């Protein structure tokens, strides 16, 4: 193959054209995703939401096993519009489990530093983001969530998602809130919480959900 004059000139002209293309594309990406710096197109670190300590309920509301209450934890999410952020509710459920567990999931996230029989789950389904429900009677899971019949050991209160019928067990051994049926790839995400007197205080939330 001979490298003629024309070819050399063509290659030489291609360099600034390609450079120009990159120079145009880089700001274009940042036009669409403004919180990325130059050359950091796919970084999602600046999108991490911020919460803080929030009292979400009282331990007295969870007197008996399987008692529960819903709550919302508010976080500040980045938004690519003139306001720059939006306050978004993370719906949650607090459940009194029938026995004490280590509130840590298979992903290594710890929700409570000691053994506890109170568990706080984010209700944003870890599958595709719908809000799942706490279902005190497992028979309702069978009738309304795709006909799933849990094994004997799991015939108690469960959590089920209306969209794609993932079912979660709040007291799953070794991973409370783990998926027992449906397409979700993992168990429910946790809240990190502390108990101050009678108050249940959420101090953080496991990352990853689109709110």
């Amino acid at each position, binding site marked *: 193959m001979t490298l003629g004059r024309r070819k050399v000139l063509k290659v030489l002209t291609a360099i600034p054209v390609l450079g120009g293309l990159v120079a145009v594309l880089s700001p274009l990406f940042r036009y*669409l*995703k403004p919180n*990325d710096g130059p050359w950091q*197109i*796919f*970084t*999602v670190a600046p*999108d991490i*939401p911020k919460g803080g300590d929030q009292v979400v309920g009282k331990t007295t509301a969870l007197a008996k096993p399987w008692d529960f209450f819903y709550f*919302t934890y508010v976080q500040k*999410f*980045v*938004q*690519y*519009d003139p*306001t720059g952020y*939006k306050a*978004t*509710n993370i*719906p949650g459920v607090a459940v009194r489990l029938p026995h004490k567990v280590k509130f840590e999931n298979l992903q290594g996230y710890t929700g409570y530093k000691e053994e506890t029989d109170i568990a706080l789950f984010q209700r944003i389904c870890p*599958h*595709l*983001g*719908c*809000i*799942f*429900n706490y279902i005190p009677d497992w028979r309702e899971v069978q009738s*309304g*969530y*795709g*006909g*799933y019949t849990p094994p004997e050991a799991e015939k108690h209160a469960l959590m089920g*998602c*209306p*969209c*794609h*019928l993932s079912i979660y067990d709040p007291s799953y051994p070794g991973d409370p809130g783990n998926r027992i*049926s*449906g*397409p*979700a*790839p993992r168990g429910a995400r946790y809240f990190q919480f502390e108990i101050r007197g009678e108050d249940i205080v959420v101090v953080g939330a496991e990352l990853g959900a*689109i*709110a």
Partner: protein
Amino acid sequence: MSAILDNLKEWLQDRKQHLDLFDETKTSRLDNPLYTLGGLIWLSWIVVIVSGIFLMVWYVPTTTGAYRSIEHITYDIPLGWLARGMHKYGADMLITCITLRIYRMYFAGEYKKPGELSWMILFASLVLGMISGITGYLLIWNQRAFWAAKTVLTVPTYYDEIPGFGNLGLGRAIAYIFLGGPAVGQATITRFYAIHFGISVLGLILAEVFFYRTRRRRLNLSPFVIALVVVFLGYLSFVRLTDMGRWANPNRTPLPILSDWYFLALYQVVKYMPPLWAGIAPALLIGYGMVVPFLDRTKETRPLERPFFFTVGVLALVYWIGFTALIMLNIAVIGRDPPIIMAITIVVMTLAFLWEIAHRRRKAQMRAATAKAPPAPRLPPGQGGRGGAAATT
């Protein structure tokens, strides 16, 4: 390398000359209703664009104003119901006609040379139509819209979990770019509004450039058919006022919840599959649609002469209807159904493959038999045969 480029250029030139976007070159076949589909696509598209412009006059693209403004358009503004109905039912008609035309082109083998580019553009237009659909129905800001947007845009986040690639953050970046951040909110409406509007405007510009350059007639339908369609859409808008649904509530997902009709089958598939596969499967389906003209290399266009591709088409149609029916009947036993569906698919595809092989072998044998048969003796002029017949007349 330059030879490949030259071939590609030549291929593109040739296919561009045979491009047919709205059946505008098939005017001689208009007696068959299946060949009015192209014209109906153009007509419904224009209905959607014009009614969309009317809606834009009153629509407020904000999380607090969107639902109320559409309610206002539907119930208070004179003829607002008509603008909204024409937009909604026109869009339904557009998707229906594109889908039917895809099936027509598939079963009639119209995607074969020189129709490859026309087929690819039609297939891409279905994808764009569906994107336009999902971005459009978020604009109502009702429950169905909110949860559809959220689930659809959570799917790309699983692209970060493709084994072997590590977490590059690309999937999340795609989701955040479309959502305008890691949550569904005001930025999402703004971006969806821009995409919804942009798809039609850019598409229309490209189609107009095409018509300007080819000097072809856009709409090959009789005024009677055009009037019938427009009146029918208007009538439908009047008798079946488009649904409002309930205002989007990010804290509560209704049970049960359904998507728009053309996503129902996909919705059912998402229940059955792990989410990464549910994200990859539609991409594979689109990929199959795009490359099918290059996989089905025979010159045959009759469906039964290409058994494998015929069966794949029938299977896709049966699944589309079957999954839609299942989700409407709220049947989805996650532990039971997927193995049955997988078994049916494997058996049917294997049978189709065997059918294709047997068919090809039979055809090859027939060809060999014809080749082996001794040629008919040439008779002298005046003693029968073609020459003789010509001589006697």
